């Protein structure tokens, strides 16, 4: 077989998802229809499957001799110390975290220079400068949000009806609710019996979508402190120093735009002109995560779901207009993104550029959105529209653990989130 025949088709990007069964039913139908006429895609599917088979066949064939007896014997030796493990468990669960917390407090309060130094190191890792027009100031933004919330408190609230099916599709159920005048569209995807996730499906009004230019960002690395926090080089091998004054776009371009004014049916995204890793001069939407409005933060703080470190600031001229929060990749975390965009705007699946992983280390992550717009939005979304801007609040829940233990628990969790 000859993998990778050089053919180009706009549907090419769906091939892997198609093979994985990861396309939405709508997209799958569309792709099936396309396949009838497209030899290029047919070939690529067959090549990809051939590659999978060749890979499995090659990698599954390895020399193996069981070492079971040695493993069991070592485990039996450890069994004698099993009680120690229980003590370790207690230590691990309660004593050590408490001790660590006390130690951290002592460190912070008694050694301010250390605190300052660490804080400075983290806050100056990089600065991201947006190049286009996001005109609102930070305080304007907060005022807009506050006034919006105040004006919309008397609207009908259907939060209590949450959980009643609005529509049942093959693998998911869609609910729509209203809360404080904001339309919240909730998409619960059932993967197996135990898994559900929250997303947004825009059903009312119908929407069209288009392709959004990816963000163009300039990273201005002001310091050489990356080594302190063990900054890992990105996949392409560039060191953090290489980021300095470098402009690079976000990785994927298949971002959707919802035009909620337009009651037309969903349209196919036109993305032929836009290629991954191509720079774009006009930035409509960045991976901005501007600080959560205070009233929301107060509500969300007790949930301890918002561990954040501020790493990147967004500037317009000399004015800082936004801050990117880099979030911990904890099993459960909840983010409130606030995205600024012109009237034609979008919600994307937001991945962080730099994500701290365990032990405060940072990992470079590419920013991606998934091509399939119906399955990628695991956000609960509300929007605010002003004269020429729309603001989206996305509550992104990126885990299935703990808060997703049961549907009811999940629903209660959502109900407990108050915007006012």
């Amino acid at each position, binding site marked *: *077989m000859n*993998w*990778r025949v050089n053919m180009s088709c706009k549907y090419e990007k769906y091939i*892997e998802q198609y093979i*994985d069964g*990861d396309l939405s039913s709508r997209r799958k139908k569309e792709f099936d229809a396309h396949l009838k006429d497209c030899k290029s895609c047919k070939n690529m599917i067959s090549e*990809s499957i*051939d*590659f*999978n*088979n*060749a*890979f*499995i066949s*090659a*990698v*599954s*064939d*390895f*020399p*193996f*001799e*069981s*070492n*079971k007896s*040695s*493993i*069991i014997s070592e*485990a039996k030796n*450890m*069994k004698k110390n*099993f009680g120690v*493990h229980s003590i*370790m*468990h207690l230590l*691990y669960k309660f004593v050590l975290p408490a001790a660590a917390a006390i130690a951290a407090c002592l460190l912070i309060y008694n050694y301010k220079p250390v605190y300052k130094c660490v804080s400075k190191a983290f806050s100056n890792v990089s600065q991201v400068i947006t190049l286009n027009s996001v005109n609102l100031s930070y305080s304007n933004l907060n005022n807009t949000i506050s006034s919006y919330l105040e004006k919309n408190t008397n609207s009908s609230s259907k939060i209590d009806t949450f959980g009643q099916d609005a529509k049942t599709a093959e693998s998911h159920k869609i609910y729509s609710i209203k809360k404080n005048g904001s339309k919240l569209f909730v998409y619960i995807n059932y*993967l*197996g*019996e*135990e*898994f559900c996730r929250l997303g947004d499906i825009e059903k009312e009004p119908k929407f069209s979508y288009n392709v959004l230019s990816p963000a163009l960002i300039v990273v201005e690395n002001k310091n050489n402190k990356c080594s302190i926090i063990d900054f890992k080089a990105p*996949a392409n091998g560039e060191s953090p120093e290489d980021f300095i004054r470098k402009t690079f776009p976000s*990785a*994927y371009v298949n971002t959707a735009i919802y035009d909620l004014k337009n009651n037309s049916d969903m349209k196919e995204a036109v993305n032929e002109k836009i290629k991954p890793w191509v720079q774009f001069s006009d930035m409509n939407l960045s991976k901005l995560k501007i600080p959560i409005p205070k009233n929301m933060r107060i509500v969300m703080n007790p949930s301890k779901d918002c561990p954040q470190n501020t790493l990147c600031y967004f500037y317009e001229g000399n004015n800082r207009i936004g801050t990117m929060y880099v979030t911990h*990749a*904890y*099993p459960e975390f909840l983010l409130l993104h606030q995205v600024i965009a012109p009237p034609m705007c979008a919600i994307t*699946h937001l991945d962080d550029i730099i*994500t701290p*992983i*365990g032990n405060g280390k940072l990992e470079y*992550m590419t920013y*991606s*959105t*998934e091509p399939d717009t119906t399955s*990628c939005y695991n956000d609960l979304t509300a929007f605010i529209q002003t004269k020429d801007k729309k603001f989206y609040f996305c509550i992104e829940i990126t*885990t*299935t*653990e703990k808060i997703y*233990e049961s549907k009811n628990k999940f629903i209660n969790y959502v109900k407990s989130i108050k915007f006012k």
Partner: protein
Amino acid sequence: MKANGGEVMESEQMLKLLTKGDTGSFEQLVDNYEKKIYGYIYTMIRSRETAKDITQDVFINIYKNLYKYDPEYPIKPWIFKIAYNTTMNYIRKNKKHLSDIPIDKLSTSTASKDNSGKIDFKNELYTELNKLKPICRTIVILRLIEDMPFEQISCMLNISVSSVKHRFYRSKSTLMDNLKKYELEG
């Protein structure tokens, strides 16, 4: 992601093991997973002896950390997470000396003509795999060999599902590009 279906039995076994320190259940676990874990590590490291040692360490780590396991969740990602962490620790510790570890190379000298192409392909595949970042290698192996869902890989590696998918598709594409010269059947 919680446990379901066939994984429930294993979870119960693990629970039993947790409460009673039952090595019988642990033996069952070793039977079920030793080859898979060894295969994963062998693909990552490509040295039989090293893979054997790391596999043993993985199971000892599993045994040591049983109290941390939540039986409500599937065991496979948890086991592979330990395997991944143990392997990564090894890679990190031996970064400077990794080149000294003898890499098993499949010999083509005794292979028939029919097989030599496949052996070349296999060697080349391992070489190309080795060029990927360990996390990408892990994703590709877990997805293609272990047929692990993206969601489980995501939970296991603590990165978002979209990031897992993105890395998988990109890594696979790289492998396919770099191995296109091989025209094998099946």
